[in-house]
């Protein structure tokens, strides 16, 4: 009887669902589908436009504060934005306030600068990890060398060509914060608003909706949310990377969930009215 069959389908072995999901997520890794990514969300477009307008040679400060647990979402964002900065010949400085992110930062700079023939010390600099972000952020408003007198390798930061003419926020064009923590709120509240330097953020998909008010009031110039933000930025910079292949698998995964819950409701309806 049909009804019984449907009932049985209700109690489908969930391991089939697991297998489906695994396949949906794994296939795009091996062979990116390149599903259309026509929509570029407003906030990502704003971020891109803002960075695009920064004159070549300006200094952009990246604060990369994420550890391996949020890596899938945030690492592609950081890669895409740094690529964009190098592409436009901007000077890049990197700071971090999360101990776990130093390895990930090293990973970025093993790879990306070579693509654009950028040299450490001349085009970009990485500063060591610091605890106590708020104090450091405040100190950097007057003289950043008070804290960052040396770069990560221990060289005198003042002497690096990349740092010429840079003393505090006034000499920088932009702050980019990519994080899975509340650090973006700090940058906005303690630096962006206070010292009038534009801030662009990159956050996880979960925390993205919470930044609506900041964007509305212009306290954030732009925002990248989750893997989707990374994928959109990659498509704007025209360098597809992990964000693009990631969003492929997320597309399929989400579609699977939607189909599953729709099917289970259709079956429920059928059972009820048959």
């Amino acid at each position, binding site marked *: 009887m049909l009804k019984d069959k449907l009932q049985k389908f209700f*109690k489908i*072995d*969930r*391991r089939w669902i*697991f297998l489906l*999901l*695994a396949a949906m*997520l*794994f296939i795009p*890794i*091996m062979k990116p589908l390149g599903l259309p990514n026509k929509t570029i969300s407003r906030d990502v477009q704003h971020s891109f436009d803002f960075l695009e307008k920064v004159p070549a040679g300006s200094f952009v400060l990246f604060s990369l504060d994420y550890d391996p*647990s949020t*890596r*899938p*979402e945030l690492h592609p964002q950081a890669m895409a934005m740094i690529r964009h900065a190098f592409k436009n010949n901007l000077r890049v400085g990197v700071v971090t306030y999360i101990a776990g992110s130093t390895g990930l930062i090293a990973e970025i700079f093993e790879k990306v600068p070579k693509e654009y023939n950028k040299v450490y010390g001349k085009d970009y600099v990485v500063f060591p990890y610091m605890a106590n972000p708020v104090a450091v952020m405040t100190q950097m408003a007057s003289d950043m060398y008070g804290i960052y007198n040396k770069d990560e390798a221990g060289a005198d930061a003042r002497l690096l060509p990349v740092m010429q003419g840079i003393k505090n926020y006034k000499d920088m064009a932009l702050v980019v914060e990519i994080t899975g923590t509340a650090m973006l709120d700090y940058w906005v509240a303690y630096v962006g608003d206070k010292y009038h330097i534009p801030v662009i953020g990159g956050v*996880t*998909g*979960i925390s993205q*909706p919470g930044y609506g008010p900041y964007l509305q009031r212009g306290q954030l110039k732009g925002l990248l949310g*989750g*893997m*989707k933000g990374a994928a959109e930025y990659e498509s704007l910079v025209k360098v597809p990377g*992990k964000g693009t292949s*990631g969003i492929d*698998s*997320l597309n399929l*995964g*989400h579609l699977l*969930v939607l189909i599953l819950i729709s099917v289970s409701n259709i079956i429920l309806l059928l059972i009820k009215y048959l």
Partner: protein
Amino acid sequence: MDFLTHFWTWFCGFFIITPAWMTAGAWLAAGLTIFLFSFLYKDNPFFKTAEHLYLGAGMGWLLQVSFYSVLVPKVWEPLMNHEWLVLVPSLLGLSLLTQFIPKISWISRYGFTFLMGYGAGLAIPVGLSTDFISQISGTVQPLSMMASMTPWMIFNALLVAFGVICVLFYFFFSVEHKGHMQKVSNIGIYFLMIYFGAAFGNTVMARFSLLYGRFDDLYAFSSAKYLYATQFILIGMVVYFAVHAFLTRGKKEPEAAR
């Protein structure tokens, strides 16, 4: 003594991380990842091994963290500098360990009460400020822009306030939820449902990205550089399950996980 130092240096020499170590690491990580995932199919000895290994590793990691980031810099080093004040928290901490000796376990109360008192004293004003007063102001404040608000925004602001009041009604314990009370608290439940649904949906993406991250690692470990770690282990698991199913065929299988 010299010999010992020599030996130690020689011993440590083995553990300089070389590419071979990286490959071994890839095998280890790929193996453990697949073992844990195999639980999704069903419980098996490989999962149990990984599970127990994880128990030990988790505690080992925490011990390392509390040793090198608390006990050494905050207890040992101050003591070496003759800062005797750190003896107070250390003794309080040690008092907790008397739990294992029933006769004097009351000593541990000194440590507990310190933790409880501090925790309670901290929780009260912060709770009042961030979860209580700020939430009221967050509800009321939007309407202070009344003059520049569109009707839609005003509606939203009022809806939030209405929702908050209804939800709080739902949590009211002193009155029975009957009649009008019932209606209001029912509306509160709808707001809770929207929150639950939205929060659930909002999380799906984050969890998928984590899984994607794991799969991405497994994919990296499947390259020739790591001697095809993922493929070998995966095939091994499949073979195990196949053989196991074949051997226990006919016997009454314990109810499989649905």
